[in-house]
């Protein structure tokens, strides 16, 4: 297990049942916090895609755990095709359920090998102008 995840689970134990929030990408990593779904934890939220060999993947950990979970349902079953539309749907849902909006940022982590435990994304057209890129 990588050091980052080790640290996360070591700190998390008393808070199991919360929701993971990825807050901001500063080029060096992404800040995380775990809290109740119902509390705004940061003005910004990051959603991570994984890129490898011209394809994009969505990590399972994020599908289950991120505050805006079930992104795959929106892109693969509900036909949400663009990042702009995805951002609108996610913020609309947050607003109606929780009463707040966030600045949603999309990051693609470029991987040298196919990322494990991630689902290939077929539905979403990822506009590179709307993506921040980092390399793993």
């Amino acid at each position, binding site marked *: 297990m990588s050091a980052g995840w080790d640290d996360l689970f070591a700190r998390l134990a008393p808070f199991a*049942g919360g929701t993971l929030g990825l807050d901001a990408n500063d080029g060096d990593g992404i800040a995380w916090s775990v809290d109740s779904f119902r509390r705004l934890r940061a003005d910004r939220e990051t959603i991570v895609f994984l890129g490898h060999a011209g394809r994009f993947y969505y990590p399972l950990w994020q599908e289950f755990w991120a505050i805006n979970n*079930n992104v795959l349902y929106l892109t693969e079953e509900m036909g949400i095709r663009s990042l702009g539309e995805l951002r609108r749907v996610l913020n609309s849902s947050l607003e109606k359920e929780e009463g707040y909006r966030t600045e949603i940022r999309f990051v693609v982590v470029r991987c040298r090998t196919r990322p494990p435990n991630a689902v290939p994304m077929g539905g979403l057209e990822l506009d590179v102008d709307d993506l921040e890129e*980092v390399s793993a």
Partner: protein
Amino acid sequence: MSAPPRGRLDAAALARADDLVTLRTILASADEFPGLYRMRTPWWETLRNPPFLNWIALLELAQRSEVSARREDWFRANEALAGLAFGEGSRNEQRREADLKALLRERALDRARLPRAYSLAVIDVDATDEAPLEEQSYYLMGSLLRFEARRVRVGYDACRDVAAADLAVPRERALAELGVWLAEPRRRRLCFRGEVMARLEFDAEGLGRLRADPARLERRLNDFSFGAPVVAAPDALPLPLPIRWTKPLGVTDVRGLG
């Protein structure tokens, strides 16, 4: 209560969540956010009543040599669920954006109109176990998990024997992780029996045929409450999505038709 934990994940960690990390995130994700993953929502209560298909009705239908009905009959029961999700007073109607309301409503209705095949799963909120059984799938967070001897299957479709992901975590270790990240009594509230038991396949004329293995269903007769609802999810992708049962489609008990 102390402050919620915070930290950092670097890019390498984000890209390479190994099998144990992924399992932990799944188990730790279980929450009781009303309306999404908790068991006793109006959806589940609605699904317990006619005209919805339930476990005993599916068993009876599977014994017949050929069961077919038109799409509108199979999914007539879904209109009640669609009303809860998208009708007047629904959560979708609370959105500010009129175009999104309409878009999401239409796309959701299309899930019952367009796909040629569906998985049918029995979801039994009343059936929990002391510990997950090896040959039984469990509903958690809109996914179906199976804790096998050498792996945990995520988004498992027992009818097609495929999963969204197979995590190489041995059963004993997986159950130990379950005890840590989803301890009792939360585990019993959020993790209960659920399994794909049949398929529904439509031809070009819109006639839908039930596909099930009667012998398998008979073996599983007493594994679920007879009144447990049977719901549908589209089979439009080569592999099932990891979370595909949070917005299930209601299926009609068609025993009385034709």
